[in-house]
C-alpha cells in the first residue's frame, strides 16, 4: 500500500485518489450482500482503506455486484451503473454473475453479467470470504495503477453493443441511451 507515498500523490493524484477512496454503492443485488456488513464493520473495517458504502450512484465509484442477478435486478443494475460518474469500477462478487453459478439453469437469472455491463474483475466463490473483498480491492489498486481498470471506457466505446444486449434481455428500456455516440452498432 503506497498511500503515504507523497511523491506519487503529486505525480498522479487522479489514480491515487481513485485507489484510496473507493466509495461503493450500496446495492444488495444478491445473497453476497451478507458478507458486506462484516466487511464494513468492526471485524474487518474496510474504511481503513477508504472503502465506504454510499447511498446513491452519483456519489460512488465502485460497484460491487454481490451475487446472482435476476432479470428484474439487471434493469436496476444498468440504471445504477449508468448513473455513476466516471471513473467507475465494477467488481462481480461470487460465482453467479460470472457464469450463472448454481443457477445455471434458472429461467430468471442472467448468466454472464459482462454481457450487459463491463466488469473490471471477479471474485469467485460461493460465498467468497470477506478477505476476498480485500484481495479484490488490492487487485483493483494494481489495475488502477497500471491503467487497466478501464471497463467504463469500454462501455462508452461499445455502448451500442451493450445496449443491444440489454434490450435483448429486458425488452424495451424506458430510458434514453446514455451515449449518443460511442458506436459499436456494427
Amino acid at each position: 500500500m503506497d498511500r503515504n507515498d507523497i511523491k506519487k500523490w503529486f505525480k498522479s493524484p487522479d489514480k491515487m485518489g481513485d485507489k484510496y477512496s473507493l466509495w461503493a454503492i450500496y446495492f444488495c443485488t444478491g445473497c453476497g450482500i451478507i458478507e458486506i456488513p462484516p466487511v464494513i464493520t468492526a471485524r474487518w473495517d474496510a474504511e481503513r482503506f477508504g472503502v465506504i458504502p454510499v447511498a446513491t450512484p452519483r456519489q460512488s465509484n465502485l460497484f460491487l455486484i454481490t451475487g446472482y442477478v435476476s432479470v428484474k435486478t439487471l434493469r436496476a443494475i444498468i440504471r445504477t451503473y449508468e448513473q455513476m460518474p466516471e471513473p467507475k469500477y465494477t467488481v462481480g462478487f461470487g460465482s453467479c454473475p460470472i457464469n450463472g453459478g448454481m443457477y445455471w439453469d434458472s429461467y430468471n437469472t442472467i448468466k454472464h453479467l459482462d454481457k450487459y455491463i463491463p466488469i473490471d474483475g471477479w471474485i469467485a466463490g460461493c460465498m467468497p470470504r470477506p478477505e476476498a473483498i480485500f484481495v479484490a480491492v488490492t487487485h483493483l489498486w494494481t489495475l488502477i495503477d497500471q491503467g487497466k481498470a478501464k471497463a467504463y471506457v469500454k462501455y462508452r466505446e461499445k455502448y451500442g453493443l451493450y445496449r443491444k444486449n440489454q434490450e435483448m434481455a429486458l425488452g424495451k428500456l424506458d430510458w434514453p441511451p446514455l451515449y449518443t455516440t460511442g458506436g459499436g452498432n456494427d
Partner: protein
Amino acid sequence: MRELELYFGPQHLGMVGNFSITLKVEGDRIIEAAANPGYLHRGFEKLMELRTWIQNFPLVCRINVVEPDPMEMIYAMAVEKLANLEVPERAHYIRSIYLELSRVSSHLFGLWAYSNMLGFDTVAQWAMYHRDLVLDLFEELTGGRVYHIYIWPGGVRRDFPDGFKDRIVNTLHTIGGCVPDYDAAFFNNRLFYERSKGIGQISQEDAKRLGGVGQVLRATGVKHDIRKAESYAAYNSIDWDIHTREDGDAYSRIWVIRNEMIESVHMIFKLLDAMPEGDAYKKVQNPFKWKIPKGEAYVKIESSRGELGLYMVSNGGDKPYRVNFRTPSYTHGLTILEKMLRNASIADVGNIMISLYVVAPEIDR
C-alpha cells in the same frame, strides 16, 4: 394536485435486501404502499425439481441467506418424513444447538439492520462484530461462514469437534457479557423508545387475520411458537419460555427479538448440558441412486422469523416432484407491510420493514 410516487429500494441505503416498495405519498404521509418483490426470484422450487434429493441441499440453504440453517433443517425433516428415516438422539441435540446458534446470529444481524436503520451505527457495529464471532463457530463446525450444509437426512454431517462445546460457551459468554452494554446504549435508550413506540402497530386480531407469525405475532401477545406447539429436534427435552409483548409495535418486536436471543443462549447452555453421547448421524444409502417413496409431506419449524413450512411431494423418483416453501417473510413482507405502511411517515418505512424482519430472498425464492 400532483401525486408523488416514491421508490424505496432496491438500491437504497435503508433497504436490507433486494426488495422494493413503491410508495404513493402526500406530504410526508404514505397513502398507499405496494411491495414490489421479485428482484431475487430464481425459481428455486422449479430448480429443485430438476435435482436429486441430495443435490438439493446446497440449493435449499440459499433461499435465506441470513439464516440458511432452518432451511436445511426443514428440508432434511421433510425428506426424513417422506423416507421414514430415524434420527439419532444426539443428532437431535446437535441440530437444536446449531439452529439456536443460527437464531442468535440471525437476531444479531437483525439488530444490526434495525439500529443501522435508526442511524445508530455504534450498536450496529457491535452487533455485527458479535455475529461474526458466532459465524466463526459455524466455520469451525462446518467449514463455511455463511452456507453450511450441515444438517443431513438422518442426522448431521459430522459430530462436534473436540473442545467445541467450550468454545461455544466462551463465545456466548463474550456476547452475553455485552448485553448490559446493549441495554444501556440501545434498548433502554429513550430515543429508541421514541422512534419505535407506536410505529407499525398491529392488533392481535389483525396479526392473526393477515397471517402474521413469529415475532410479529408474539409481539401482540400470542404465545405461539412451533418449537413448543409442534416440537421437533430436542426442544421438548429442555425447559424454556416463549417471550411475548402486548403492544404489537416495532418497539415490542425488537424487545421480543432481544429476549428471544437471550433465551436462545440459555437454551444452548441447557442443550449442551443435556446432550447425550452416541452417533451423530445414521448412514443413508447411496445418494445418487436414492429414491424416495411416493407421498407428500408438510413440515414446519420455527425459524428466527417465524413459521417456516415446507410442502413437498414425491412421486417415487430420485427427485422431488414439487417443493413449496412457506416462508415467514412472505406474509410479513407483502400483506402486513403494505397494511402497516399506510398512513405511516416516510421516515418510518425502513423502520417498519426491518422491525417486521423481512428478508427479501425468502419472499422471492
